[in-house]
């Protein structure tokens, strides 16, 4: 069934969108990630204009994170205070990111920016995750790894300290704000929630306990992506309601299936799989930049350069 998307102004198969949403949903449910970093490139591949893909994906992430946060709030695994500090950074970052996005759109480099960001971040995160989970698998084979002790790093020597009771931390607000800003910029430019950057940063940089990390990052992601959606909607008019709803319905159902598959696999194996997937997306986007494209020219909206 073909459906005409009013904002993207293209006609696509509704079942293809439901299916894409479903597949990414299964993966995100399995791995506990938002899946924006997979969905946005997939939308490029099926011919949705990049600006619409990025803005609409932000809209979708808000909705798909919403039910997740409710579950975490019930289990009291959200550090609201930390979430708010991250959020302050996130909102600043998102505003900056949309500015950068629009400036580069005007000079015709937004595709390059989006793709380079993907290659860079997916490459780094994928490799780190791969090495780390391989090490974990080796350790678990040797049997009985030593639990990690929190180290005293430069993070603990900064001013403006604040007590985060839920996380059991007494640290400066500067690092969480910086993490928030970075994630906000990424959310605006790449059309992702940024969980794949924020979760490792919270664990390794801020030293937060793992059980509150996911809930807190989801809490921040909802507000940052909601803000990003509104910014894109009011400055670029690129949020496609119809596209978002179709992706969501597939995505939510997929996520439920994925979560059920996820509990049957071991955490380390899951992480190796996820690392592979991240690196595969990274490799595909990287190759596209390196190989000479069949069509050297492209058309863009007029105005400013």
């Amino acid at each position, binding site marked *: *069934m*073909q*459906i*005409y998307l*009013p*904002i993207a*102004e*293209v*006609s696509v198969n509704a079942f293809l969108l439901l299916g894409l949403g479903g597949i990414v949903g299964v993966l995100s449910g399995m791995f506990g990630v938002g899946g924006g970093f997979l969905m946005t490139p997939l939308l490029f591949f099926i011919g949705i204009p990049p600006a619409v893909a990025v803005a609409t994906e932000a*809209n*979708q992430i*808000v*909705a*798909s994170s*919403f*039910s997740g946060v409710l579950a975490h709030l019930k289990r009291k695994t959200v550090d609201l205070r930390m979430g708010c500090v991250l959020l302050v950074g996130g909102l600043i970052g998102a505003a900056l990111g949309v500015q950068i996005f629009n400036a580069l759109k005007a000079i*015709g*480099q937004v*595709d*390059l920016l989006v793709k380079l960001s993907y290659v860079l971040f997916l490459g780094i995160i994928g490799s780190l995750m791969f090495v780390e989970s391989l090490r974990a698998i080796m350790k678990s084979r040797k049997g009985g790894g030593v639990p990690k002790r929190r180290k005293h790093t430069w993070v603990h020597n900064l001013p403006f300290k604040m007590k985060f009771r839920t996380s059991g931390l007494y640290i400066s607000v500067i690092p969480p704000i910086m993490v928030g800003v970075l994630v906000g910029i990424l959310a605006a430019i790449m059309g992702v929630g940024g969980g794949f950057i924020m979760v490792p940063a919270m664990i390794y940089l801020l030293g937060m306990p793992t059980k509150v990390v996911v809930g807190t990052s989801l809490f921040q992601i909802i507000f940052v992506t*909601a803000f990003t*959606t*509104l910014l*894109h*909607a*009011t400055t670029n*008019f690129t*949020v496609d*309601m*119809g596209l*978002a*709803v179709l992706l*969501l*319905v597939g*995505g*939510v*159902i997929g*996520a*439920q299936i994925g979560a059920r598959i996820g509990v049957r696999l071991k955490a380390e194996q899951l992480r190796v799989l996820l690392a592979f997937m991240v690196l595969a997306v990274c490799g595909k986007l990287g190759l596209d*930049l*390196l*190989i*000479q*494209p069949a*069509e*050297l*020219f*492209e*058309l*863009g*909206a*007029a*105005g400013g*350069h």
Partner: protein
Amino acid sequence: MLRILSIVALFLLSALPVRAEEIVAGLSQNRVSITATFVGSEILIFGAVKRESPPPQDVPLEVVVVVEGPSAPITVRKKDKRFGIWVNTDAMELAAAPSFYAIATSDTLDNTISKLDDFRHLISVERSIHISDNPFNINDPREFTDALIRIREKSGLYKRLENSVKLAQDTLFETRIALPANLTEGDYRTRILLTRGGQVTSEYETIINVQKVGLERWIFNLAHEKPLIYGLLSLVIAIAAGWGASAAFRMILRN
């Protein structure tokens, strides 16, 4: 008095030989509505040649049909290899390029219309693409306009349909022009021209109106006129849809 009148009439006739053959034309539809399930549309353009005197026998009659979508400025960008990766380097702004352009002819384009009349009546798509400023930083502007035409031909927005106008007994003609799903809204100027020996002898013009309707129209207007409300609404709808879908799915699993 009568003599003067007949001289005037003769003079007028010789000055306006084009009036010898006139087009009576019709369209299968002069409104195209873009709805949620719009997958493109095919327009049948048909008509007849009305004449007062028998047609000249020496040169054959040919028909050209041109459908042109609304024009808009556009930027064409060229990629080049920098630091080992392919990035956009040069850009050329075009003041206007039609969003859709179809030429259907009863023979090949070259056999149907002469170069001079092509220029005079702006038939080929190249004539409707306007380069704005003098692009001083571009060595070869032609390369960019060619690229525009190539890309739009590939996506079905520009088409050259040679030998596609059916002409019966030098009088009745018809052609079908497919409009793709990714249409721009606006007035599509539709021209029918008769030619003999490459020269245009008669011209007819009408408009096809393409518009989003219903829900598509409403969403598009809201997004552009009240973007903040639209943005908030899309968030609410998305959250409701996500919640609803997960609740429904859980209910199905429980039963």
